[in-house]
């Protein structure tokens, strides 16, 4: 006689079954579906398309289950309209190539979005689902190829938002992208993915994509049928920092838009429906991008803390003044910040320029200078920190395309100060000086992950500051000794700590610490300093050198 099976043995068959159909699962367990589920909550189960008639399932049991209008119960189907289904299932995502970074979908769950994800293997199920489902549907494409969107659109035949992730610098929207988009049903939204992510998978569900999905889900009907949203648009969104949060967010967007070569194209600003909108007031967004059309949408809660500015750009318009678009944006911003501006037509060896002036200082702004292209293998100089007199800078070269390494090399070797639009944000109109620009630049470079560039920038800044101190303390003399050593850059690293930003100054803590190498015999000291930068200059508030060095 064979040993009787364990009373729960059929559970193994349930777990290894290749179906999610409740009726089939009951039969697999060897039980009668008509009573099998009595008393079991079906919360969280996907019951779309399932016929549950005759299975003794009550309405209370399906609370929280995912259903659609094809789910059949013992009660009449009218109670089970797509409207009801839609409340339960917020949206559907199709990612034909699968998502390499599936765990990121948790980010959407954290936002409280309920969704169903498909890939190319479950495409049939996807087509089946969207046939009856009229809620938000997204298809995420990583680098679309020719005709791809058109093919999907023909196959799916529904209003869908196609999210196309494009890597790297823009200028890659080709005619076929536009043709594809205009022939598709629904909208195509391109999201630029920073190039520096390299071969790493794009952050599909977090960041901009997650924000876009959350925003579009909350406003699906007004977006999908909105004629003001072009068939193809590029989505930008940002969060700001510091005392001028909104301005900072828009400057970040300007930077991304410029790097995507899309400044000057018409755009639509997304504004919160619940915030009263003042038509007379000039917004920083209008100052930077010209008059933007406004799209009032309701902001889902998860976005309120994450996004300070959002913009859709229509890259199809032929009306665009490429050459001066960026210049106009920056000039618009400076005007918004109440800085005195003057177009100087006097001949200058560097070409046309603007003059920006504060109470005591005047600076030339150059926009036409082509930014130096980083060459492969460009490295920062090693050894000695060059002495730079920052007060000598009177020319600003404005660009968004300067990397940290290039910016530092340009200061050290060519005596050129490259600034971005964000660098002007710390400036108060009345006390414009080189230091208000440097204060803002410190924040950017201090956060840089490029250690060599960061170290060199702050070392130059400190040398310049120490040389101007009349009454030197023993600590600052030692610091100056260390900074002017021939091998400083080989042996030391500067790390920045916390930044405290107020309307007038930026305070930061930094540490200079030695990296012991084979050449160094003695232990290198670790020096803590605290700097305060305002429009007057850089102050070393604190400088702590280990006692042993004081000797």
């Amino acid at each position, binding site marked *: 006689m064979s040993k009787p099976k364990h009373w729960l043995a059929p559970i193994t068959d349930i777990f290894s079954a290749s179906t*999610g159909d409740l009726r089939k699962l009951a039969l697999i367990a060897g039980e009668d579906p008509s009573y099998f589920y009595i008393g*079991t909550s079906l919360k969280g189960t996907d019951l779309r398309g399932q016929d549950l008639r005759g299975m003794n399932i009550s309405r209370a049991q399906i609370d929280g289950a995912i259903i659609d209008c094809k789910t059949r119960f013992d009660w009449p189907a009218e109670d089970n309209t797509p409207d009801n289904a839609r409340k339960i299932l917020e949206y559907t995502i199709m990612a034909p190539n699968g998502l390499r970074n599936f765990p990121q979908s948790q980010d959407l769950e954290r936002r409280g979005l309920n969704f169903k994800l498909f890939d190319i293997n479950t495409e049939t199920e996807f087509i089946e689902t969207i046939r009856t489902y009229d809620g938000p549907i997204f298809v995420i494409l990583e680098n679309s190829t020719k005709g791809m969107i058109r093919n999907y659109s023909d196959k799916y035949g529904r209003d869908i938002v196609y999210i196309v992730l494009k890597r790297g610098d823009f200028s890659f929207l080709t005619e076929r992208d536009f043709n594809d988009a205009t022939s598709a049903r629904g909208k195509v939204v391109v999201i630029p993915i920073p190039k520096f992510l390299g071969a790493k998978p794009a952050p599909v569900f977090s960041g901009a994509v997650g924000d876009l999905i959350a925003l579009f889900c909350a406003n699906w009907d007004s977006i999908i049928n909105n004629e003001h949203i072009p068939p193809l648009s590029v989505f930008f969104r940002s969060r700001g920092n510091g005392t001028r949060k909104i301005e900072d967010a828009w400057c970040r967007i300007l930077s991304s838009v410029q790097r995507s070569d899309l400044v000057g194209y018409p755009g639509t600003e997304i504004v919160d429906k619940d915030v009263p909108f003042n038509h007379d007031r000039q917004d920083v967004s209008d100052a930077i991008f010209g008059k933007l059309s406004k799209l009032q949408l309701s902001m889902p809660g998860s976005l309120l803390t994450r996004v300070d500015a959002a913009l859709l750009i229509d890259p199809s318009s032929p009306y665009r003044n490429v050459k001066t678009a960026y210049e106009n944006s920056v000039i618009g911003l400076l005007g918004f910040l109440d800085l005195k501006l003057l177009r100087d037509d006097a001949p200058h060896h560097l070409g046309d320029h603007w003059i920006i002036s504060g109470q005591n200082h005047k600076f030339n702004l150059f926009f036409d200078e082509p930014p130096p292209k980083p060459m492969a293998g460009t490295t920062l100089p090693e050894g000695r920190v060059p002495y730079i007199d920052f007060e000598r800078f009177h020319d600003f070269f404005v660009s968004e395309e300067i990397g940290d390494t290039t910016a530092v090399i340009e200061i050290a070797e060519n005596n050129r100060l490259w600034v971005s639009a964000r660098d002007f944000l710390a400036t108060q109109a009345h006390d414009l000086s080189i230091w208000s620009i440097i204060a803002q630049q410190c924040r950017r470079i201090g956060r840089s992950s490029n250690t060599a560039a960061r170290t060199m920038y702050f070392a130059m800044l400190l040398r310049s500051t120490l040389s101007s101190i009349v009454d030197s303390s023993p600590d600052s003399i030692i610091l100056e000794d260390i900074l002017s050593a021939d091998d400083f850059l080989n042996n030391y690293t500067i790390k920045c700590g916390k930044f405290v930003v107020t309307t007038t100054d930026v305070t930061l803590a930094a540490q200079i610490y030695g990296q012991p190498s084979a050449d160094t015999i003695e232990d290198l000291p670790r020096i803590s300093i605290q700097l305060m930068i305002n429009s007057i200059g850089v102050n070393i508030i604190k400088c702590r050198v280990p006692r042993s060095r004081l000797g």
Partner: protein
Amino acid sequence: MNQDNRKRALSEVVSLDAWHKGFTLKQSTASLHVDIAFSTGRIGEEAESPVRFQIRLKQAEVVVIVPPHEPAKIAKSSVRRDAPEKEMKLTETHRSSTKKSIVGSAKAKLGLAGLIPSLETTGKHSCETSSDASVKIVKNLHSMAVKQIQTADGDYAWEIKPVGSGFLDGRPWNAKKQPRLSFSDTRPDRDKGIEPSVRVELRCRREDLEIFDIVNKEKIGFIEAATNHFANQKMAAAQALIRTRLSQSGLLTGDINDPYSQITICAIIAEGDL
């Protein structure tokens, strides 16, 4: 053996004991004491079991049954009809505000009586006055609420529901101090024949069995569950299987197709103590 395992599973969630004073020539009536303790059972540790899971009760009923031909009679006045002493306090608050939206809600809960009226008001207008009224019930807190009822067959029963949590845990009453009822021995001659016996049963419905934390022992890890499209349906089916099998092992009264038919989790005969 197989059936035993299932019984053991059910006995893990509750232990039941009942006793009364023995009848003598002088003593013709006795109080019936019922002791119940609820807990959370952890099932499936044995090697053959493909899963491990936990089980507890959401609510239950204790029924005292005097079989038809037993020489016993229940004294109606002795049946413990716990009407918990409670004190009610009404607090009313009136608020006026010029905020953009006001959400007011008023809820009154009378858990012990099983009556749960609930009122919710939501307003979304600028400049609005809202008033809230709430009923506060002040009483001695018990983790379980007991209500005396009579079953369809006319037997005396006590319905036990959790208060505060969603499941039963601990003892609903003090068995020694709070006997459920008294009954008398109706034999004409108490020297002859057998003492009357009274049965005590603990019953619940299928939905009252809460089965959770099901772990597939063969493939431990949630990764499998997270990537499996049908994971939720399969979990529901696994739960349904456990529930169905357990109710088949307990005595299912009524039609299996009737969602309200009850399972007898355990039944004992009250013993006469000397």
